[in-house]
């Protein structure tokens, strides 16, 4: 046996994303945000999207391009503090925003990726984040039902990949990427380098290729991935 090859052209796989799709996007700030996949999604123009992403990047970067291009209807996120433009869209009801506690967003995505229906957590009880959520008692204590999240697509940024779709991440560019790479029907990974099968050490792989549907190697790394000058 040999492992199947999932290398693909980035343009072709992004073309599968249609209007109305739900899309998970990796990244926490710049690190781990799949800037090139996002730019291609802007170019191809699918609309009425639901994005699931930790943050909305900063004005003029990453998913903010999708927001500016009017492609986003709904955003499930944890914090928009670095993107005043996104906050403006939210305050003007031009996008709907659902805020989650950050670790709960991570757990909900992981639950989707793990094929479980929900997790029960007491995080946020007594705050407005608990409003409208089903409550279940465990050991006599109230817990919120935090339902699993899955998406039609996940856009992932990896440092290295192999043709089967095994992925490794570097430093804090890992963040939500390995979780989202488990939780979508179609997982598309951009990788800074795609190495031949066998070059990634089996113990060091962060995401097994079993979770990944398509992997595309980036050519030049654009300036959007660079250190942000403030």
């Amino acid at each position, binding site marked *: *046996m*040999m492992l199947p090859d999932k290398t693909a052209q980035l343009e072709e796989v992004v073309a599968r994303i249609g209007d109305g799709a739900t899309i998970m996007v990796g990244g926490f700030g710049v690190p781990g945000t799949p800037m090139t996949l996002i730019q291609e999604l802007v170019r191809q123009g699918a609309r009425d999207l639901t994005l699931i992403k930790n943050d909305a990047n900063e004005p003029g970067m990453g998913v903010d391009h999708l927001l500016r291009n009017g492609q986003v209807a709904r955003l499930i996120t944890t914090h928009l503090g670095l993107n005043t433009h996104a906050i403006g869209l939210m305050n003007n009801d031009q996008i709907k925003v659902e805020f989650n506690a950050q670790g709960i967003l991570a757990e909900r995505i992981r639950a989707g990726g793990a094929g479980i229906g929900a997790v029960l957590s007491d995080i946020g009880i007594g705050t407005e984040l608990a409003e409208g959520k089903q409550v279940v008692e465990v050991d006599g204590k109230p817990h919120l039902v935090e339902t699993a999240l899955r998406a039609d697509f996940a856009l992932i940024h990896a440092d290295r990949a192999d043709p*089967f779709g095994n992925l490794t991440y570097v430093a804090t560019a890992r963040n939500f990427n390995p979780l989202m790479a488990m939780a979508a029907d179609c997982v598309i990974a951009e990788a800074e380098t795609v190495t031949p099968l066998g070059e990634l050490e*089996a*113990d060091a792989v962060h995401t*097994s290729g*079993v*979770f990944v549907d398509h992997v595309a190697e980036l050519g030049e790394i654009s300036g959007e991935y660079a250190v942000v000058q403030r």
Partner: protein
Amino acid sequence: MSPNWVKFLGNTPLSNAKNRMTARAAREIVPGMVVNLGIGLPTKVVDHLPSDFPVCLHTENGLTGIGPTLPPDQANRNLIDAGGAYVSTVPGSAFFDSATSFAMVRSGRLDLTMLGAFEVSSQGDLANWKIPGKFSPGVGGGIELAQRARRVVILTTHTDRAGNPKLKDECTLPLTARGCVSRIFTEMAVIDVTPKGFALAEIAEGVSLAEVREATGASLIVPDSTLPVF
């Protein structure tokens, strides 16, 4: 399936009934699949795949990309499959923890599993983990494989050691999962589970229809056309 693989299987020596059965079951594996093979007969299926067949074998103790089983003197003390066999890796193998391993299974990333059976009902119910008062070693990973692999096929002898049918109208033993089985491979026949019950799909060389009916504990739908022989 590409004609290439069919040709290969045509050359496999089918020296006995079990070998013929596992060779036939191997044709169930489509290029590109992620497959989990249960302990016993299912493990033998892999011997019928050519070395360049594109498939990913998964074992629930934490490996995608299982390579050939090794003799003790070549074995890695830290590398076994879920049945305890000393296996190896292939280029592109990845290791992960038990939670991630079952995340793959439950979230639908397992295309196919081949399992053994004590009983299969004509509705596709499976019993393969417990015989009350006689055999109760625990269910291991069987429930999740049976309930969540996208396709579940069974490799089993047609009858038990006492000659009693394993294919029945209803299971009498504790269930592993309900309605999970799609197809059954035995030394006598290939039988599909259909909305109308068991349907004979293929028959083993030298076995008569009457013999299959006799050994089956439920009614059997037989096609009007000639039955393929394997």
